[in-house]
């Protein structure tokens, strides 16, 4: 019953020279750019359509990176031991945040399409928009966007650099430093993610408002994080890396957290819907009214069943979380419905008559995700896949669930 307290010599902890992962940055990078270019090309006559589709894909990819940033901060905040063996994969996920600053450019170019309700505001025509104009104006909007992207880049790099540096130095001060940074980092994270969600998604419908909006986007991104983290870990293991040291106990924990945050997302989604349904105020219900005809209501129902009910019962049994195949299936499914969730949030502003899925949506999604994977693979090659000299590594290796 004694588990290893150090990494066995036969475990591959870095991407080897002959692994296909060496070529992933290039392959995924090219695929990503080609998909995005194709999406843009195919929607030449409906540029607005492209920009909405791209916005959904962008918020999707961003949620993966932001979810990872949250995970890493919290592991240091709580001085967690179980997660050390999977933390580097999450660190590489959050390390892609500078890429999302670059990927923001098409969003920025398309803002006058997506946020057309207020982008070219004519004062005096709409008193509600006039009241918000000090906040919803292009200049301040861009300034805030730059601020969020800069903060996310600084935070993610601050944690990633220290963690990677510890691989060489083994210096415990790196861990202490990250523990020290974690609380204020969490505060900055909460505020920037909230206001980014408000700016980039809620203001699509500028008459509407909801105080829980930031929490909603956050909840979805943590679900996406645990899903993607599970898949990436299992993928790396399938290609021969970090086997044995990441075992059923860790899958179980990832599965439990995925399950828990599915419930949390459902709770937040229900809170928002329920309070607006109950009070029945037209200025609030309009947002759901837009999503209750033409086919959007079917998508809403799909979310209830697919984002809550199915994952709930699927991930409930202990065995499902401990088995890599079923965990991967559940994670993959959730990554898909997370996209549908963001689609449901953003697209009805454009496709008011009902969902009109098109190849452009798939191309933008694949494009952004491919770019994300390219950046992830690039970072994964550059350092070990596991924080080899983390002071709590032994605890993580030996950890056992109930």
């Amino acid at each position: 019953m004694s588990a290893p307290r150090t990494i066995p010599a036969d475990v591959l902890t870095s991407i080897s020279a002959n692994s296909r992962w060496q070529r992933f940055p290039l392959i995924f990078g090219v695929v990503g750019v080609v998909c995005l270019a194709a999406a843009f090309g195919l929607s030449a006559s409906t540029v607005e359509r492209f920009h909405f589709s791209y916005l959904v894909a962008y918020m999707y990819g961003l949620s993966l990176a932001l979810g990872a940033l949250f995970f890493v901060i919290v592991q240091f905040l709580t001085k967690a031991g179980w997660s050390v063996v999977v933390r580097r994969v999450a660190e590489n996920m959050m390390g892609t945040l500078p890429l999302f600053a670059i990927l923001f450019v098409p969003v920025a170019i398309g803002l006058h399409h997506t946020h057309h309700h207020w982008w070219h505001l004519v004062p005096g025509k709409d008193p509600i928009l006039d009241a918000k104009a000090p906040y919803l104006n292009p200049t301040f909007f861009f300034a805030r966007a730059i601020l969020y992207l800069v903060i996310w880049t600084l935070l993610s790099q601050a944690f990633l650099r220290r963690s990677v540096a510890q691989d060489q130095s083994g210096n415990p001060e790196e861990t202490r430093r990250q523990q020290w940074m974690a609380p204020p980092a969490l505060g900055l994270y909460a505020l920037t993610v909230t206001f980014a969600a408000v700016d980039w998604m809620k203001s699509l419908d500028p008459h509407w408002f909801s105080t829980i909006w930031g929490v909603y986007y956050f909840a979805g991104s943590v679900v996406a994080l645990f899903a993607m983290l599970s898949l990436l870990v299992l993928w790396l293991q399938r290609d021969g890396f970090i086997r044995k040291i990441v075992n059923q106990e860790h899958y179980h924990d990832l599965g439990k957290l995925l399950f828990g945050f599915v419930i949390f997302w459902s709770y937040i989604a229900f809170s928002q819907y329920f309070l607006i349904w109950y009070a029945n105020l037209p200025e609030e219900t309009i947002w759901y009214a837009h999503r209750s005809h033409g086919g959007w209501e079917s998508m809403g129902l799909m979310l209830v069943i697919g984002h809550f009910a199915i994952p709930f019962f699927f991930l409930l049994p202990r065995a499902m979380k401990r088995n890599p195949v079923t965990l991967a299936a559940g994670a993959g499914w959730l990554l898909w419905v997370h996209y549908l969730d963001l689609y449901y949030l953003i697209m009805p502003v454009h496709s008011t008559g009902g969902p009109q899925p098109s190849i452009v949506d798939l191309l933008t999604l694949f494009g952004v995700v491919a770019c994300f994977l390219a950046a992830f693979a690039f970072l994964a090659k550059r350092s070990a896949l596991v924080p080899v000299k983390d002071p709590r590594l032994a605890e993580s290796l030996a950890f056992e669930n109930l």
Partner: protein
Amino acid sequence: MNRPYGALAEFKSAAEIFHACEKVRDAQYRRWDAHTPFPVHGLDRAMGLPRSKLPIFVCIAGLTGVAAGMTMQWWMSAVDYRVIIAAKPFFSWQAFIPVTFEVMILFSAACAVFGMLFINRLPQWHHSLLKSERFRRASDDRFFICIEAQDAKFDPEQTVQFLKGLGAASVELVEE
């Protein structure tokens, strides 16, 4: 003395009882138990116990709770005595969710607790082991193994010798 209830061996640490249990399990005894002041991690496997079935019953109880809560509200609000409240539909399933959820939790928790007591056949205020003076330390700081006389392989002398061989601090025969 009359027929004993079983042989009771006392151990001083969690590590000792863990290894002792493995040996008792490997010696193919069936009617025996370990007694520890707190649950010792991994002792399930050391004793060769199958996993508990309690979670399945609790899940069924929970689903029953959901059905019961929703059905009750539906019948009371949309069938038996319909009252118009704030122009909400008679079957306001959204508004019925909080109570349904609470009823689900109540049924599940009750099943977990009373199911656990039932499986463990508690309360059982009278038991042979509770008459032993040494056994009082089972709830304090000592660890015990008791092999019941009803076990097919039980023999008053051999079983006591076997238990002594496991490193027990003391072994006694407990009266019925």
